[in-house]
C-alpha cells in the first residue's frame, strides 16, 4: 500500500486518552520486566536469613530505592488496572467511545490512588 496517506507528525498528533492508557500499559509492562532481577533479589534477601532481611529493611529506608519501588508499584498497579479494563472490553462489558474514555480515566485514577495508599501504609 505505497499510496496510503500518512500523517506521523508526532507534535501535531494528539494521542486520545485510551491510547495514552494503552502506551502506559506497554511502558509499565516493559519496566516491570526489566525490574525482575531486582525484585527477585529483594525477595531472596528478605527470606534468606535474619541478617539479610535486616539489611534489606535498611536498604528500603534509602530514598533512591524507595522512589524506584514506588515507581514500580505504580507500574504494577497501572498494568493491573489497565489489564482488568482489557478483560472487561474482551467480555463486551465496556464498549463505545464514552465508556472507553470514562474507563480510561478510572484506570489512571484508581492506580494512582492505590499507589498513594500503599505508599503511605507501607512506609
Amino acid at each position, binding site marked *: 500500500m505505497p499510496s496510503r496517506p500518512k500523517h506521523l507528525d508526532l507534535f501535531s498528533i494528539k494521542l486520545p486518552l485510551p491510547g495514552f492508557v494503552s502506551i502506559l500499559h506497554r511502558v509499565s*509492562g*516493559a519496566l516491570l520486566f526489566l525490574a*525482575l532481577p531486582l525484585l527477585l533479589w529483594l525477595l531472596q534477601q528478605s527470606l534468606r536469613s535474619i541478617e539479610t532481611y535486616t539489611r534489606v529493611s535498611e536498604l528500603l529506608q534509602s530514598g533512591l530505592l524507595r522512589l524506584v519501588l514506588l515507581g514500580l508499584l505504580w507500574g504494577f498497579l497501572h498494568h493491573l488496572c489497565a489489564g482488568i479494563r482489557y*478483560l472487561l472490553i474482551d467480555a463486551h462489558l465496556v464498549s463505545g467511545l464514552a465508556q472507553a474514555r470514562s474507563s480510561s480515566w478510572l484506570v489512571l485514577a484508581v492506580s494512582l490512588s492505590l499507589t498513594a495508599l*500503599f505508599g503511605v501504609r*507501607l512506609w
Partner: protein
Amino acid sequence: MVNRMVTGAHYGLRDWLAQRVTAVAIAAYSIFVGAWLLLHPQPGYDGWTGLFSSNVMRTFSLLFLLAVFYHAWIGVRDIVMDYVKPAFIRLAIHVVVILLLVLYTLWSVQILWGM
C-alpha cells in the same frame, strides 16, 4: 505462499488466551499478598518467612512466578515484534529474553525452597 518469519508469533490465539489466563493468576496472587501486606505492614522476619513456610504457599508462589515469566515473555515478544524489524536482532533479543526467564525460573525455585 505465506511468508513465515522465524521470529513471528506462530500461535496468535493460544498466546492471546495464555496472556489472559496468566494475568488472572497473577492478579489473584498479587491481591492476596497485597492484602496480607496491608494487614501486616511491619511483619518482621518471622512473620514474613512464616507466610512462605508452608509447601502450599511455596507452590502457589512458584506458580505465580511462572505465570509472571510466561506473561512477560508474550508481552516482551509483542513489543519487540512491533519495534524491532531486522530478523537477526529480533531473534537475538528473543533468545536473550528466553534465557533470562529460564534463569529466573531456576532462581525462583532456589529462593522458595532454599530459604
